[in-house]
């Protein structure tokens, strides 16, 4: 290589570097945030000329609102409220049916560590209303009657409860499903690089404009600190932790992730992070693995197809599934 050619290549490299630096500065995401589904929902779009997708982002928020209308236990006309109040088989929307079936599948696969029929128990503890209290054991036992994988039967879009008293709560899966629906709306409008983040549960569409997304995982015992980070694209990430909603009574901390088998908060984990293709599955599996604890939870994560995860046990020890080990970075 002659001297002049080497210098020419050097200059070309420098100006290319400058071009990409300028381009990086010019590319800013379209970011919109709303309070909905009892949390903060943020949608970011990283495609070139992201401003043109403003309507698509509005449509994605509208889709999430539709899911909330169908599945919120606090809206009297929702499928979930109607089903909870019903004493005869009732028809539900395709969306609610899909979520109920997923919930039943995870309930069966986790041997009852997850349930869509915990409405009475959740109301009894008062976490949803913000007036949490320690219920009497007899009340807990009553609220647990007839819950479990056999509690609901499906006939087309008609659902039958095994007992009229059963109340439905899709809190462990509906938010993830709404995230999935929002991503579907964004993708259908041609967006290739976006994220939908609902209070820390998220799904990523494509990569982050040419590079993987860097997803921090909240440290369960250090506010504001990151336990680890993941480099991901086209994946959903959901974390269930005991630090979000809790109250203390007589020196004991009671958090909101209830074990359907005992009726009390699950005690074996601090947090569980699940990575999957769909947020609804990740949402349900994270809750189930949290309830199962580090040992059985890891077995459950390994046995669930398309799922990886990280479990922080109650003693602070950490276990990671093999599929996640190459993607994880520790601080």
């Amino acid at each position, binding site marked *: 290589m002659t001297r*002049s050619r080497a*210098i020419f290549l050097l*200059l070309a490299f*420098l*100006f290319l570097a*400058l071009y990409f*630096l*300028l381009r990086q*500065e010019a590319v*800013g*995401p379209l*970011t919109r*945030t*709303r*309070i909905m589904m*009892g*949390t*903060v929902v*943020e949608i970011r779009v990283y495609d070139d000329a992201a401003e043109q997708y403003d309507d698509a982002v509005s449509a994605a928020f509208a889709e999430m609102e539709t899911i909330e209308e169908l599945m919120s236990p606090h809206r009297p006309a929702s499928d979930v409220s109607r089903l909870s109040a019903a004493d005869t088989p009732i028809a539900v929307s395709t969306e609610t049916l899909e979520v109920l079936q997923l919930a039943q599948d995870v309930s069966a696969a986790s041997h009852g560590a997850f349930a869509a029929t915990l409405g009475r128990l959740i109301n009894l503890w008062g976490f949803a209303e*913000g*007036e*949490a209290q320690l219920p009497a054991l007899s009340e807990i036992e009553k609220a647990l009657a007839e819950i479990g994988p056999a509690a609901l039967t499906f006939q087309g879009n008609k659902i039958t409860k095994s007992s009229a008293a059963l109340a439905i709560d899709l809190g462990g899966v509906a938010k993830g499903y709404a995230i999935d629906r929002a991503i579907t709306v964004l993708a259908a409008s041609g967006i290739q690089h976006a*994220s939908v*983040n609902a*209070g*820390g*549960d*998220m799904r990523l569409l494509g990569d*982050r404009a040419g590079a993987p*997304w*860097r*997803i*921090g*995982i*909240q440290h369960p015992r250090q*506010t*504001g600190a*990151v336990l680890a*980070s993941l480099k991901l694209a086209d994946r959903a*990430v*959901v*974390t269930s*932790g005991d*630090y*979000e*909603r*809790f*109250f203390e009574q007589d020196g004991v901390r009671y958090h909101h992730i209830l074990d359907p088998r005992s009726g009390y908060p699950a005690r074996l984990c601090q947090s569980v*992070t699940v990575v999957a293709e769909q947020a609804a599955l990740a949402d349900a599996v994270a809750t189930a693995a949290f309830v199962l604890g580090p040992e059985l939870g890891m077995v459950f994560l390994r046995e669930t197809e398309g799922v990886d995860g990280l479990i922080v046990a109650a003693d602070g020890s950490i276990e990671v599934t093999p599929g996640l080990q190459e993607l994880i970075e520790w*601080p």
Partner: protein
Amino acid sequence: MALNDYWQRLTRLDRGIVLALLTFCALVFVVLGLRSPGQSVQVRQNQGTVFNAPLAEDRSVELQGPLGVTRLEIANGKARIISSPCPYKVCIGMGEIHREGEIVACVPNRLLVQVIGQQGVEKENRYDLLSR
């Protein structure tokens, strides 16, 4: 004078390279100089902005929500909620925010506090999104 002598000894190609490198350096300085120079704290409620202030100026502000008054403190370049009428005080537990795009929210009191940059350009961060 030494610089002049040196310049005279350079070939036309060398001079071109020197000028190109100087231009490149100047452009890099311009680009870096335009980067998000200041940040502010924006508070939104029901999709409307109810408060906006620079992160660099210490202050305390009372924000009215449906449950009552939430107090926001801006101090030492960081913002945090210091009192809230909400039942679980999750917003207080979320701690301080100072990086562009970071959010603290009091969902029951319908308040969304976010750090934003003047240019609307994200700053370098250790992660893009936080799973919690």
